[in-house]
Structures are given as C-alpha cells and as structure tokens.
C-alpha cells in the first residue's frame, strides 16, 4: 500500500495531462445553438431586392439553409462561390443580410452572383439577435416545418457540406457537389 501511494502523483499527473490534452482539441468558439430543435423565430423583414415585407410563413415549407452574410464579412466572400454551387444543385438557400447596407449588398450580389432564393434585409440585426447570431457567416439548417435542425458557424465549403449539412438534404446528398 505505501508503495502504491508513491504512484499517486504520477496518476494525478496523467489524469490532468489527459484532461488538458483533450482541451487542446476543443474549439472554444463553437457554441451550441440554443435554437436547435426550436422553430425559426417569427419576423417581419423586407426582401433585399423587391422591398416586399416577408414573414416567417413566406419562407418556410421546404428544407433550406439560412445563410447569415454581410458585405463587411470577409469569410462570406470566401464561402460565396460554394453557396453558388449549392444553389445551382437546387439547394434552397435563404440569405439573411445581417447589419448591412442594402445598396452595398445588392451590388455585391450583382458582382459575385446571387445564390439566394430570397434575401432578407436585417439591417438592424434584430432577427439575427432572435436567432442567436453572433457573427457572420453562420448557416442554419431549417426543415420543411420551419424548425431549426442545425447551426454551423463559419465558412461553408465542400467538406462542411458533406460532413455536416448534406444529411438534412437527402435528395442532394447522393449527387454530391464538386469539390
């Protein structure tokens, strides 16, 4: 027994090392969304291009991605070409233009292409706030009933689509999207 006691510091060290080692592979910026499993919040926002007032009822009904983007967000430019590819495959993407200037946003979509079936202009960021958005880009998977199933923070690319998002869109999964 006294012999075993000598190994206690070693055991404590190993345990602590394992704990800290695991900490190295955790990403502290990935937060669980409080919205997962809950319906998309209600809203009343203008459509970016038409200026038409839209509410929650007008956009739900089909599985879709809700992509939070802004012209001030550099990573949004990075993921933009991939969103165009997804849209070309037929994935329904709703844009949420977050705390942005409408004129700049329209010019941006004109220059780079528009992957969005609809773009909601959330210039005050109030829908963003109701959704728990804390930066851009963020992408939400919303099912046909308007319930949020998943949230991805950061750039959407082929790998993110394949590993995290595609499972919610079985009709596009098999086709795969070119890298």
């Amino acid at each position: 027994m006294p012999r075993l006691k000598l190994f206690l510091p070693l055991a404590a060290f190993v345990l602590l090392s394992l704990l800290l080692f695991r900490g190295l592979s955790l990403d502290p910026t990935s937060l669980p969304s409080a919205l997962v499993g809950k319906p998309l919040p209600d809203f009343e926002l203008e459509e970016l291009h038409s200026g038409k007032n839209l509410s929650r009822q007008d956009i739900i009904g089909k599985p879709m991605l809700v992509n939070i983007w802004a012209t001030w967000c550099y990573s949004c430019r990075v993921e933009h070409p991939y969103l165009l590819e997804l849209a070309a495959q037929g994935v329904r993407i709703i844009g949420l233009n977050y705390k942005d200037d409408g004129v700049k946003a329209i010019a941006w979509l004109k220059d780079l292409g528009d992957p969005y079936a609809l773009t909601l202009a959330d210039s005050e960021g109030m829908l963003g706030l109701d959704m728990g958005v804390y930066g851009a880009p963020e992408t939400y998977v919303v099912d046909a009933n308007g319930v949020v199933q998943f949230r991805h923070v950061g750039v959407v690319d082929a790998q993110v689509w394949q590993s995290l998002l595609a499972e919610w869109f079985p009709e596009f999964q098999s086709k795969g999207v070119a890298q």
Partner: protein
Amino acid sequence: MIGLCMTVMTAQAVIETYEFSDADLERRYHRLSDELRCPKCQNQTISDSNAPIAKDLRFLLHEQLESGASDDEILSFMVARYGEFVRYRPGLDSNTALLWYGPLLLTLVTLFALALHLRSRKSVVAPVEPTEEEREALRARLAGSGGEQKVRS
C-alpha cells in the same frame, strides 16, 4: 475598492450611454451587463466589450429594463437566444453541475486526504528502543568491521 475599479473600467469601455428613468434600473443594468457574457468575444462581459453584438445586447438590456422586465425574464430571454453560455453565472443543470459542485467536491476530497494523512501520522508508534542483545550485536559489528561498513554505506 474592486467594485470602484470595475465601475471605472466599465465606464471607459462602453461608448454609448443610456438614460434611466430610475436609479434602481441603472444599478440593475450595470449588474446584469456585468453578468452577461459577450457571445463573440468570449472572455468579456457585454459591459466590457465593444463588439457590435455586445452593443446590441446592451441596447436590448436597456430596453427590457425600461419596459419593466424582471431580472429572470431578461436572463431567460438572453439564454433562449444564446444558450447558458451567455451567463457568467449559469443555472444549475446536468451540464453545469460539475462547475457548481466541483470546488466543493475538491475541497471535500482534499479535507478527506488531509484527515487520512494526519491520522496515519498519529498512529506511527514511538521508535522502539533496541534490546540489549541488539545493542551488543551492533557494537560488535561497528568495532569488528569498520572498513566493510564504510564500503557498504
């Protein structure tokens, strides 16, 4: 003193100022904005941070306070949007149980280990005096083989 320092820091960090209809609301505003965590800049409270999201949350906090919401209502409003993460004092559930009870647990474990240690020290009996034969044998060895002893030691 620490409270004073924090108030000064807060006053420097925040750009916008809000008018409160009641001094009590202002006190609650400061208390809550020091408890709510900025989702973007994770190690700051919303009163510390200049991130746009922190500014929005301060705006909402002020609005809700003025509209008469209770502290609980405000906190659950924030938690519904940003999760328990947004509170520096999260509620007690299965995820945060270790956080709340961990220090108590560690203290108990330490006290237990200390008690064990002290008890085992008490139970050590006083050194036994060598018997006369043993003394004899020792003396014989010391006298008889001094050189060998040195080598051994």
